[in-house]
């Protein structure tokens, strides 16, 4: 505050001591490209304090010292220019938009800055990075494009939540997902649909084609202006806007594509299945006889008994009387779960333009997409209207408004029998169609997902309105005030129906309806102060406040006993089995201040502070303070480097700051009783024990970075090292159940993330044939600090957050192979010695689901009208666990499920050397969770290959269009991995501890798209 007053004082002096002997000079500043006027351009006079800014029509008037020789023109995003002042009193100047990456304008919290002046670590992505990608949500498109940002979409199901971790996971129990801010408005990103199914992704409501740029704030210096919500990084999304004086452009983007699974697991066919069944009968019979369990008279008696009384009845039962001995039926159930050539279609139309006073961007879009799995579709349409209007030179109003509707037709989660993903468990000898009814076969080992797909549905419709209005008042040339008020209104309607015939319908029919509403109201009010101190110094101060209030309401009703499948909503349910409404609110009140000072264009210093108050904490610890500071030094501006031919830019950045996390849901600090509904006895039941001292989780982050440019910036890039130390973790700690409670939130423990990021872009060839290569790689190391011996594990107890190990470490029995004599699975006991007794095996940390290295490698070529881009994505150092292994690769021990082809190598006779233990429903081995199904998750994927052709001007102009591009594109075309299925899967999307588990999870899609972009 004191600093601010000082600044105001300084600028005051500037005005008082203005020179008297002056001349008036006026003129107009335009864009060299299209002669459109540029407003807001700063004009200064060398050697004097004179200062002017152009109006909306690009015109300016400046009083300069009569002795002044030149004007200095600067404008964000354009090359600076010095213009010699002659005798004329009017001067028209055109500015060239800057081409260099370093002069990019970057959106930062509550303002904009030139990339070269930034002292924090920010990843910038442009429209071209997110458009034309065949996924509903833009996050999928940025995978591998921003170092240190790990995007995991988890499966080929559409509309699922996507996990994004920026510089590792910094929390155990609180969310580790970043804050999303669209045009200054923080938006709702948490799933609001039916809690028994997978989380969905509200970010999919943003049309990727409306996005102008995405900035990912990674270090504390960049993010701390968002204080208590910034510990996981911040994703700033800016939507497209019109430009002043721009000719109206109509743009049409349309694309059509087809998708198929990128990778499949191989399962047994009917013949192989029957073979394995017969082998199991031999195994069980032999084991039983050799160990004298039942007391058979001979080995052949034993085997025959198992054959005729255990195994073959299963084949008889499920083959529905077909001749399984001769392979009458050979069903590939896996094929039945995929929709072949699942189509997707997108149409996007936008109109953009502007006059001196008003600029606009209008768009409308429609897209439909089928997932590669049956019954899963996503469709969406909507519109955006962005407008900015200059009331006067001093006052600008604007509005960014998007309205859309999306519909997601869902399938049940991976754990449900009714999910198509579990069809692979059905026997290949089971007919797909029941010959006696002509309908899909119901007499399958497990309830058939095909049956449920016929009779069940789960449709989720979301209406989303995100709007932010602002007014910007230029109080003084150096002082402006911005006031924004915005709302994010999300309405979700989910209708679920399970017909009487389906397994989930339980023979009675079941239905439910969910109505969720989340309304966020946000206001930002801040001053931006850019006093002119002298030629060598630039100061930018932002100070203001913001208030965010979110109200959430969730209404739920469910019923059963449907007379038939004719009426599919709740009005058809003759018995209501549940209904409830839940409401919650959270609020954040924040004050922020940031000052950035640039000296001699080479010394940069920035400091910020944010004070956040939130309803999520009790009165004792409601407010948190989140300061940050950073320094930058542009070495290439120093005399000793200035003349270097090779080096064109070099900047050293150092930052340190504090950010917070409070994403633990509401009311966690109180003791709570909920309503209990025992019949006729309305009551209360204790559900939560208080911790009134609960406070913010904090992350201290240090970042050292280097931005470089070589050979006239043909080679540019960044190198960063960071260290993030998170303390006072908001930990959901187990307490003895004898208290009556399972856990309470405590500020306990710490976690460290540290890593490196490296990126390089090289314009290898810049002539008629253009070739650009970009490469980025990031390494992150996570370590859970002292959590006081708390054992924190995933629901299936296979993954842990354990002190001294990375979060999300797999913790299980080590599989050592197979005893060649007995076929028994061998495990490591606590001392590491082999044992065939699973119960006496030790459990060990055996890897983690988070990768060590992630990165992307892109080569872009352009020649004449053609352009080609080849993008590879890779991750290494992670593990993937096939959690369904104990059903699909267990040699029937846990059921008669169809098996992976790996089982063909299972142990058969003493002396066999194999890694697959003895099969057998009774006396099989190795069917419990162990590293047997833990695989290296490293993979390299040809994520995207796009070939485009720009139709020549001669053709387009005769067609009266300004440009047209035709392209073909492929996603996930090639995958190199050791995992037998798709390595990019995760049945527990959005969890800090659980991840990298494949449980009948739908693989990623391989998609081919053709598209057309036309500008009129």
């Amino acid at each position: 505050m004191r600093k601010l007053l000082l600044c105001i004082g300084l600028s005051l002096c500037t005005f008082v001591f203005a020179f008297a002997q002056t001349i008036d000079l006026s003129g107009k500043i335009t864009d060299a490209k299209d002669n459109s006027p540029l407003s807001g351009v700063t004009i200064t006079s060398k050697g004097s304090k004179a200062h002017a800014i152009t109006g909306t029509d690009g015109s300016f008037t400046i009083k300069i010292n009569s002795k002044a020789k030149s004007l200095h023109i600067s404008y964000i995003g354009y090359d600076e220019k010095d213009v010699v002042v002659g005798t004329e009193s009017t001067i028209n100047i055109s500015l060239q938009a800057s081409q260099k990456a370093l002069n990019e304008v970057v959106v930062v919290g509550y303002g904009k800055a030139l990339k070269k002046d930034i002292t924090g670590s920010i990843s910038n992505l442009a429209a071209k990075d997110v458009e034309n990608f065949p996924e509903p949500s833009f996050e999928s498109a940025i995978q591998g494009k921003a170092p240190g940002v790990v995007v995991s979409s988890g499966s080929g199901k559409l509309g699922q939540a996507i996990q994004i971790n920026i510089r590792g996971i910094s929390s155990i129990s609180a969310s580790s997902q970043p804050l999303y801010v669209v045009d200054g408005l923080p938006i709702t990103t948490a799933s609001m649909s039916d809690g028994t199914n997978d989380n969905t992704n509200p970010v999919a409501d943003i049309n990727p084609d409306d996005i102008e740029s995405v900035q990912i704030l990674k270090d504390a210096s960049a993010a701390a202006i968002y204080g208590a919500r910034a510990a996981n990084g911040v994703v700033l999304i800016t939507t497209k806007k019109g430009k002043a004086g721009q000719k109206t452009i109509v743009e049409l983007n349309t694309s059509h594509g087809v998708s198929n699974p990128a990778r499949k697991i191989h399962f047994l066919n009917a013949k192989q299945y029957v073979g394995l069944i017969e082998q199991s009968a031999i195994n069980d019979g032999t084991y039983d006889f050799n160990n004298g369990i039942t007391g058979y008279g001979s080995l052949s008696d034993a085997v025959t008994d198992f054959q005729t009384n255990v195994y073959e009845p299963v084949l008889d039962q499920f083959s529905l009387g077909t001749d399984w001995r001769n392979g009458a039926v050979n069903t590939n159930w896996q094929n039945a779960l995929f929709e072949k050539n699942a189509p997707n279609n997108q149409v996007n139309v936008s109109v953009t333009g502007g006059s001196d006073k008003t600029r606009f961007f209008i768009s409308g879009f429609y897209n439909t997409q089928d997932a590669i799995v049956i019954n899963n579709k996503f469709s969406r349409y909507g519109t955006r209207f962005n407008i900015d209007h200059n009331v006067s030179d001093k006052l600008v109003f604007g509005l960014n408004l998007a309205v859309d509707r999306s519909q997601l037709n869902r399938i049940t989660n991976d754990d449900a029998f009714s999910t198509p993903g579990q069809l692979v468990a059905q026997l290949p000898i089971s007919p797909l169609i029941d010959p006696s009814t002509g309908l899909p076969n119901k007499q399958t080992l497990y309830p058939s997902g095909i049956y449920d797909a016929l009779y069940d549905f789960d449709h989720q419709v979301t209406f989303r309105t995100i709007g932010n209005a602002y007014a910007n008042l230029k109080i003084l040339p150096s002082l402006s005030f911005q006031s924004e008020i915005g709302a994010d209104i999300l309405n979700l309607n989910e209708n679920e129906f399970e017909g009487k015939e389906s397994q989930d319908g339980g023979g009675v029919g079941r239905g439910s309806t969910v109505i969720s509403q989340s309304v966020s109201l946000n206001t930002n009010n801040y001053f931006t102060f850019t006093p002119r101190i002298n030629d060598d110094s630039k100061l930018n101060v932002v100070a203001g406040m913001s208030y965010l209030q979110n109200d959430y309401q969730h209404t739920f009703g469910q019923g059963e006993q449907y007379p038939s499948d004719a009426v599919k909503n709740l009005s058809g349910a003759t018995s209501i089995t549940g209904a409830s409404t839940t409401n919650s609110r959270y609020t954040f009140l924040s004050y922020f201040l940031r000052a950035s000072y640039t000296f001699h264009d080479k010394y940069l210093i920035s400091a910020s502070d944010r004070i956040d108050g939130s309803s999520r904490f009790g009165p004792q610890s409601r407010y948190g303070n989140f300061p940050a500071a950073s320094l930058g030094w542009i070495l290439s501006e120093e005399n000793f480097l200035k003349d270097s031919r090779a080096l064109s830019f070099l900047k050293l950045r150092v930052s340190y700051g504090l950010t917070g996390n409070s994403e633990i849901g509401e009311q966690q600090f109180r003791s709570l009783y909920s309503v209990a509904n025992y019949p006729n006895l309305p009551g209360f039941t204790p559900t939560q024990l208080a911790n009134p001292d609960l406070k913010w989780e904090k992350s201290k982050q240090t970042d050292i970075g280097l931005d470089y440019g070589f050979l006239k910036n043909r080679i540019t890039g960044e190198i960063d090292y960071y260290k993030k130390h998170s303390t006072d973790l908001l930990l959901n700690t187990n307490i003895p159940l004898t208290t009556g409670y399972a856990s309470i939130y405590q500020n306990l423990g710490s976690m460290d993330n540290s890593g490196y990021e490296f990126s390089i872009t090289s314009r290898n060839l810049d002539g008629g044939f253009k070739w650009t290569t970009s490469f980025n790689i990031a390494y992150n190391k996570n370590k859970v600090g002292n959590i006081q011996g708390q054992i924190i594990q995933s629901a299936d107890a296979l993954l842990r957050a354990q002190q001294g190990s990375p979060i999300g470490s797999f913790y299980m029995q080590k599989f050592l192979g197979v005893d060649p004599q007995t076929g028994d699975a061998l495990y490591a006991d606590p001392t590491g010695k082999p044992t065939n007794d699973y119960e006496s095996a030790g459990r060990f940390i055996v890897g983690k689901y988070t990768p060590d290295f992630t990165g992307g490698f892109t080569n872009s070529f352009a020649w004449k009208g053609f352009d080609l881009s080849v993008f590879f994505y890779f991750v290494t150092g992670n593990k993937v666990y096939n959690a369904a292994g104990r059903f699909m690769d267990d040699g029937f021990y846990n059921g008669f499920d169809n098996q992976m082809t790996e089982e063909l190598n299972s142990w058969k006779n003493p002396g066999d050397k194999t890694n697959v233990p003895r099969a057998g429903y009774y006396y099989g081995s190795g069917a419990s969770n162990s590293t047997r199904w833990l695989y290296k998750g490293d993979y390299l994927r040809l994520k995207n290959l796009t070939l485009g052709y720009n139709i020549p001007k001669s053709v387009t102009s005769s067609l009266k269009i300004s440009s047209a591009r035709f392209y073909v594109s492929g996603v996930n075309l090639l995958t190199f991995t050791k995992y037998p299925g798709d390595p990019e899967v995760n049945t527990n999307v959005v969890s800090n501890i659980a991840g990298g588990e494949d449980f009948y999870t739908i693989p990623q899609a391989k998609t081919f798209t053709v598209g057309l972009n036309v500008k009129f």
Partner: protein
Amino acid sequence: MKKLLITIFIFPAIFFIMPSCNKKLEVLPQNSLTPDQIKTSSDVEAVLFGGYETLQNYGAFGEQFILVPDLLAADSQVNWVGTYPEYKDIEFKRAISTNYVAGTIWANAYKAIDIANTVIDKINIVDTADQATIQGEALFIRGTVYFELVGIYGKPYSDGNAATNLGVPLVLLPTYAYDSVKNKPARASVADIYKQIISDLTTAVSKLPSSNANFRADVYSAKAILSRVYLNMQDYVNAATQANDVINSGNFSLNPSYDKAFNNNANSSEDIFAIQQTTQSNAGTSNQGIVTFYAPQPLGRGDAQIDDGYFTFFDSLDFRGKFVTAGTSISGFDGNYPNKWSQFYKTIPVVRLAEMYLTRGEANLLSNGNIGSVAPIDDINIVRKRANAIAFTSAPTSADFVDERFRELGFEGDRVWTLKRLKLNVDGYNYDDGKLILPIPQTEIDVNKNLVQNDGY
């Protein structure tokens, strides 16, 4: 200049105005209440009613107080053919300390105990006229839950080492704030837990009314459970006395036919204490609840099937052996299912009058007593006659009572306790084998170093 001044004033003004926003940071919960809102007599009563919900929970009588004992004594009773390996492990006596069923029972039971402790602690707020009843019900809940807990996690009382065998932690005070030292109790001995159960239930008997509204616990609920407790302690005189009091109360009568004792919308005439369920309040319908597991597809999952040996216990006329349905499990296995648990949302009998006859008869037989002045043969025949079974013509033996209890109370969680009480082998294991009780949940041992794990885990 003027504008600048205005600016300088506006700026601090914003900072000063905003503290009024501070009020916006105080947001009260809208779906639940805070403890300071529990102030009146009816509030305390509501907390007590919450205790009944914990008894209905699938971790208690809603499923696991019944199904887990059934699986522990699976021979001739139940085969787990389903996909939840944790239940199969209990049946095969190979559960490990992380078996989640052991955790679910424990968590829910101590929640019930905490509720009871809270009600007892706040009893002074309750209107004088209701105090005795409410306190009696809280004690009934606490005593009943401790009885189930000590049986599931502790060695049987009958093994003679109750004073040294470990029971479960004895928690008698409510938790209002977490204290990382005080809230880590060690396990009390089996004898101490039994002492507390007797104390709770006898005090409950002295406080509870002879009948209570809405199927809440009354004096006979407490007496019926008390008869079970004494029977387990082989205190046959007291067991017979309590059972006799219930029989002679005149409040209960056997249903004319056996099937009428189950799948009712409210307590039947022979229910002494039963769990109520409705479509909106129940133990679970998809992955939890006794019916979910014991009813075949498509209604239930049908994971628990009747073992074929079950049918050998019945004479050809005995209706109880035919009170079954053939069906298919969710994993495709055909088998038989008990009709006792064939419909959702019905009452779950916790203790029925038929058991009181069998208890009185057996206790009289084993103690050579004549409580109620009814011969054991008459008690057993009352039960058999109702089921249309052939009546005993000569005096039944202790073994006859064991079998009769199974015939009458199969799939109601009784068998394992009867076998252990009489030191009979259970599924080929010695009655005292450590594998016949569940492990203390591993998560509980992890957070409370004062706990000692059971042998065999």
